[in-house]
């Protein structure tokens, strides 16, 4: 049913707000005055939420479809274990955004905190995508097993846009970082190469989607210098063991 409703979240606790969201027959729901309520859109399958304010931890956790657009910043664990759908944040996200995500897309206009995109994975036709407009904190894409993380480094003047331990234990997927110089000192599980046309083509639709949501010129962004992090097959953990007899 295509029906739009508006609600006011101020003063409601998270359970009351989520119960009320789940009870709505409408497919388009706008919530104003969001003040840190947790688990908004948790396990949602088919609705489109527009949120004004600051959603709390676990926004769109286990999301299985539909969209969530936040006019404001989001707190921790946004899109944790997300399966499908889209989350758009007109602001920044806290830690562990996109943790264990295996489908759908998250577009974040500004920065993310620590451990973004950690343990993302792909399978069959599921390819999760995390696009970060500015910079990312440490541990970005650790244990990455699939999917695509793009860090656009907007406003960072070509400086390395991630923190320490980027891609530790990575064994699948791809991280594309915008920076002028090849990143150094990365963990040994990571290989780095300059962005190829194939890589650029892969990120193009997502950069275009980013610009459509937040403004900016996709061609200018795509024309910048990028480096691509991929797993180093020589340094996987399989070589670590010997069996007890």
């Amino acid at each position, binding site marked *: 049913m295509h029906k739009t409703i508006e609600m006011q979240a101020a003063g409601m606790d998270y359970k009351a707000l989520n119960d009320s969201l789940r009870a709505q027959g409408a497919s388009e729901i706008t919530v104003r005055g969001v003040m840190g309520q947790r688990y908004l859109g948790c396990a949602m399958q088919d609705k489109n939420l527009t949120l004004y304010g600051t959603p709390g931890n676990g926004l769109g956790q286990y999301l299985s479809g539909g969209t969530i657009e936040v006019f404001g910043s989001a707190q921790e664990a946004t899109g944790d274990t997300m399966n499908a759908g889209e989350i758009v944040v007109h602001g920044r996200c806290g830690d562990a955004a996109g943790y264990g995500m295996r489908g759908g897309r998250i577009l974040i206009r500004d920065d993310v905190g620590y451990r973004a995109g950690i*343990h993302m994975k792909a399978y069959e036709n599921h390819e999760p995508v995390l696009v970060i407009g500015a910079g990312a904190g440490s541990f970005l894409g650790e244990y990455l*097993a699939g999917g695509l993380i793009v860090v656009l480094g907007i406003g960072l003047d070509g400086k390395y846009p991630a923190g320490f331990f980027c891609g530790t234990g990575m064994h699948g997927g791809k991280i594309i970082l915008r920076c002028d110089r090849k990143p150094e000192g990365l963990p040994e599980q990571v290989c780095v190469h300059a962005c190829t046309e194939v890589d650029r083509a892969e990120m193009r639709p997502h950069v275009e989607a980013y610009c459509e949501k937040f403004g900016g010129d996709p061609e200018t962004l795509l024309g910048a210098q990028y480096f691509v992090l991929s797993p180093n097959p020589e340094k996987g953990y399989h070589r670590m063991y010997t069996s007890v007899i």
Partner: protein
Amino acid sequence: MNIREFFPLYEVARDPARCVKCKLCVRECANEVHAFNEKLGVLTADDSKCVNCQRCVAVCPTRALKIVRTDNTYKVNANWTGDAMREVYQQAQTGGVLLASMGNPQPGPIYWDKLLLNASQVTNPPIDPLREPMETRVFLGKKPGSILRGPDGKLIPNQTPQLALRKPILFSAMSYGSISYNAHAALARAAQELGIYYNTGEGGLHEDFYAYGDNTIVQVASGRFGVHTDYLSTGAAIEIKMGQGAKPGIGGHLPGIKVGPDISKTRMIPEGTDAISPAPHHDIYSIEDLRQLVFSLKEATGYRKPIIVKVAAVHNVAAIASGIARSGADIIAIDGWRGGTGAAPARIRDNVGIPIELALAAVDTRLREEGIRDEVSLIVGGSIRSSADLVKAIALGADAVYIGTAALLAMGCHLCRSCQQGKCNWGIATQRPDLVARLDPDEAARRLINLVTAWDHELQEIMGGMGINAVEALRGNRLMLRGLGLTEAELRVLGVKHAGE
């Protein structure tokens, strides 16, 4: 220095007078120990490949085979044992972390064996379970502390979701990947028939087994394998795995070679790549964070499912359990030092954690002291080997037990502790289709049902002997236990008196 490969630990002894050269052993051994030399017309054996899984012994139609421990030894040394020396050689050769399977096989105290049970004599008559009703059903979950009534005097239901078990036994978490499709099928069928539960482990739930959802506990671990909304809503309960007794403090690693199309789809991970469960949940750094995951799962399933939090038995497990009980979890599962595994670093398995008996007693005592014992139920595992262990666990304070190794044994496992190699000749810890086909799920399910039914009968017999007719009255009833040969400290932690006291 060139140290030759180790002298084989086990030797294949073939009785030529009995062997009819049917070559069944050659076909059955996935380790390729047996071979037939066409030229000489004789069966040969490469002892160095033998893991002593007893498959050839069991299938040999003429009982011509046995596997014997070699009598070759290094110079006998009580400190530098043969195993200790061999492991040094092996690591010097490979530079690898020693990887092992199943529970810790080292000697060490097994407190179950040092606890004795009570029985009624004269003053409090025993009960005959063949004649009188005996209740072994249990309900797992938070128990309401008060009865609520509305203004009209009618009851307001305030019961949170519960797991109902016809017998106080559940099959422990073993993932599809670590064990085979047929093994999972057997566990699911047996759990349904028995009115108990099996546990997916961190391997997702195969689409064929959604039909058994009412008897399935679905696990959410740090890798989030196979976790999605249908999975969460299909299970009867959700278990958050924080730790495992065989490898407290570390994660898991399913090698890419075992991740075929079916495993890939079920775990929702790329085919052929390693499945790595990180050591921590990257969104949990505190009890408050744990609470967040607990409630996100409750939100995702409409507060209809009990949430279990599973931890390894470690030194401060009582304080940890107290935190978990306050996190909103409904059930705490504790996995002991001897708990099994499909693969774990041997040094961690054998040296990290504490025995489940001590952990259970400490947790139950702590929760009671803090007045929050009814906020959660307790499940313990690692390792429960018999109904006697089960009874003792309940008397120490458990609501129910997890059995893993015992269930595998029921299906045919012979504890060769080579699961990590993926060549299980019994069709259990393997993904090789020809080996998996050896395990008949119906037959395995029947054996699981037999085992649990037999233990339940024994539980009833033992309870009857004590003059107790309901598991509820046995739970935490430590007066039914006495220690034998235990120190003051051990008795204090266990909260039991010494035999004769």
